[in-house]
């Protein structure tokens, strides 16, 4: 489910059918994702906490160019003066939707707080485009 800053369910529009399908899967998930309208693309924070710490996993869905949709996985820094984003890779979809396996793996990875053993095998570690803020 996707929620707003007050944790109320909210509908979000994706940029193109691939993004819409991916967002639909996140919307139907029983895990809550909080959308941040102040960030570029559709930027979601996973709200499932672990036993010891809040989940810092985020996914930003955006289209760097026509025909390409990206789900970029990252964490925000813990320190307020840091401008870094801690990247964990991206699902890059070129002229195709995410498969069911990719979608499930992505959600599990986010829900785990980006546990290394749950890293989806199809995540690209590097990509030739800039990720908007």
């Amino acid at each position, binding site marked *: 489910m996707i929620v707003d800053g007050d944790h109320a369910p909210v509908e979000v529009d994706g940029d193109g059918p691939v993004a819409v399908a991916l967002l639909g899967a996140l919307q139907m998930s029983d895990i809550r994702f909080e959308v941040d309208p102040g960030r570029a693309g559709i930027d979601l924070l996973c709200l499932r906490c672990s036993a010891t710490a809040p989940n810092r996993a985020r996914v930003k869905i955006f289209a760097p160019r026509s025909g390409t949709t990206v789900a970029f996985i990252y964490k925000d820094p813990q320190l307020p*003066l840091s401008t870094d984003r801690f990247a964990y890779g991206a699902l890059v979809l070129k002229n195709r939707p995410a498969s069911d396996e990719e979608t499930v793996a992505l959600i599990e990875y986010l829900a785990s707080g980006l546990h290394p053993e749950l890293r989806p095998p199809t995540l690209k570690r590097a990509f030739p485009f800039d990720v908007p803020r």
Partner: protein
Amino acid sequence: MVKVELGGGMRYVRTMAVPRRNPGELQIDLFCHGVRIAPDPCLASDARPIARTRAGLGSGLELIVPGDLKDLWLNAPVEEDFVRSSPYELKRGETGWVVTDTRNGEVYPVGLPQEPDWYDAATSSGTVMREIGVLQGTYLGIYVSNSCMYWYKDEAKNCRFCTTGFNVGVNEMADKDVREVVETAQRAKDESGVTFVHFNTGYQNGRGLQQLAPYVKAIKEEVGALVGVQAVPPAREADLWQYDWLRDLGCDHFSFCYEFQDPEWFAKLCPGKQETVGQQAFFRGLEYCQSRMPKGACSGEIIAGVEPLEATHAAIDYITGVGAFPTVCIFRPVVGSDMEHYPSPAFEDMVPIMRHMYLACRKQRIPIGAAPNIEVSLIVNPDDAQYLVPRTLGFRIDRMRLGIVKRLARSHFNKELRKRKVAGDLDMPDRREGVATTS
């Protein structure tokens, strides 16, 4: 401290109160433990923003530890998980920022280098300059192009400790125009007193040195600064002449990041380097360049705290033995890296390594600390480690010798800090004979 076997390896266990650290020891302890930061509204305005741009091993807060021999720069870990249990806490004292050791109550004054104004300035193309390059200590570090190609393989071959591939395009620009690099370097020189610009490419399918050429030439001719280059060396000995070509274009320094001396550790943790060029290519490149350049002009870059300490000792002996200087990084399990869950090294293991580095440099008469205003915050600089040896008469004579070398080298460095036309041409010579520089 006693050394005991713990979790499959030897570890030091604290058995008595921790003594007050001298500046060199404090630098190393902060690298190993990181520093927790007490919430303070002034920190954002006082400190450089934390930027992991081009960071393989660094992503922390830039600090200066003052000392009587020299001030020490370090990029202290702040984001990694192990920092949560650090005994060190940064807070604002009555007269400035201090680091407190909660184990013994010792308080150490530290400096926080300020964010330069040019960080937020835009190039003529509109790019924010901090996305072109960042200060790492007192030098300007620039990762010139698309990420290291080891990150682009279907099965990633990136060095396992590194996060560079995760930065480019995320925390910095993917493509850097020569003009924008020149503009950024000029501002960094004018406003931050930068004397050294260091370019890095990561692996570029064997074209790294070629890719760097226009940047090197432009900095020498249009800015006037010392220029260093780091790229994965050519796999073939026959291609080493490219280093001569880059020297003709003005390059003053080459660094060879082979990371681990033990071939098995190298192969395991640097799979891309192992597969594409092999460890020997780094040795070949280092020996080739250093044999043609003044003593201490090249460096071998290694990581301490992962492979056995004996191997790190051997690396230092090898690097100084060829006349180069070692740049020794203390391993940091950077957030997002494949080794994120590895432990940070023990202070007690790192001090003898850094002491050995200093002594090995002095034994081989490597002129450490001779270049003007180059302090690298991601490593323990060889002359930082002078704090780790007793101040005997020999030590003082040695420092006097280094002072003389520094004075003698001043005119050379002053010349290199002026814009000058370089001898080389950007058209790559077809073969070695086309290069002006000879040994």
